[in-house]
């Protein structure tokens, strides 16, 4: 147990920065490279690193299986729901101009919501896949 001390301490140091980077990639995707998909994979990678170093139970305390499973459909619902709002307010499906009086601001908000949906689904799917494979091997 003492042999992986460096690994454990190193992981503890790195984990918050991985999450911070995922959030940066998510919310800075409008200006720099990145977006929901990349951020989703990076945040799932954080959970996977946590599981590899500290065990599956520690990871599932941070990201419980029930939550991860529900994230998979939730993201698609956020994405599709964003489109349905446009439909309900008398515009086309996925027409974001309904979110604000200024069309460009509405599009900005729409892109934000849609990327959020992608983040939730991708991160949920990747983490759930990892959990499923590891639990099979137990």
């Amino acid at each position, binding site marked *: 147990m003492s042999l992986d001390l460096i690994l454990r301490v190193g992981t503890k140091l790195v984990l918050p920065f991985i999450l911070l980077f995922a959030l940066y*990639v998510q919310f800075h*995707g*409008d*200006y*720099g*490279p*990145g*977006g*929901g*998909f*990349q951020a989703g*994979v*990076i945040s*799932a*990678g954080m959970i*996977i690193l946590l599981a*590899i170093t500290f065990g599956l139970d520690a990871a599932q305390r941070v990201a419980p299986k029930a939550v991860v*499973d529900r994230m*998979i*459909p939730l*993201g*698609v619902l956020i*994405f*599709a729901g964003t*489109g349905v709002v446009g439909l309900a307010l008398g515009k086309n499906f*996925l027409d*974001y101009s309904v979110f604000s009086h200024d*069309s*460009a*601001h509405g*599009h*900005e908000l*729409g*892109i934000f919501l*849609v*990327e959020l*949906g*992608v983040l939730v*689904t*991708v991160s*949920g*799917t*990747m983490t*759930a*896949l*990892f959990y*499923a*494979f*590891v*639990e*099979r*091997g137990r």
Partner: protein
Amino acid sequence: MVLLTLLAVVTVAIVRQRSLFGVVILAGIYSFLMASVLIALDAVDVAMTEASVGAGVSTVILLATLHLVKTTELRSVRRQVLPIFVSLVTGAVIVWGTLVLPPFGTADSIIHRHVAPRYLAESIKDTNVPNVVTSVLADYRGYDTLGETTVIFTAGIGVLLLLRGSRRRGRADEEKSPQ
């Protein structure tokens, strides 16, 4: 050129390698090289995806799979003439297809004259988003991205059903057998 040579070397190494653990690690290296190639091509968004998915998550998931199955590739008992023929023909067809493509990086090729100029010119006016990749993915081509998200959703649900469903059946058999 250096990167492409390294890619070829890693590919040959993957084919020659019999230990599946080595194959998974080499595939991770391949993904990182591919990400570097994409950065050299100025496709940073794709490079980021390749590095995080190809080298990160899929390597981990493949290693988790190796935990479940044997880790040495068995020698094939069939003759390998037909597979080699199929791969050579497919490769030749793909190379033949690239001959009619416009030269690499031409600004006035057909795909760059359709909607791309309008996206580049009006992205900021339409959406306030300076990164055109994001505005194309999430706004102009929102339907496609919704489809992609649904694909991830469907694939995830499918794999989860396969892995968890059969496990439950296996457990039910174990519970039945002692009685």
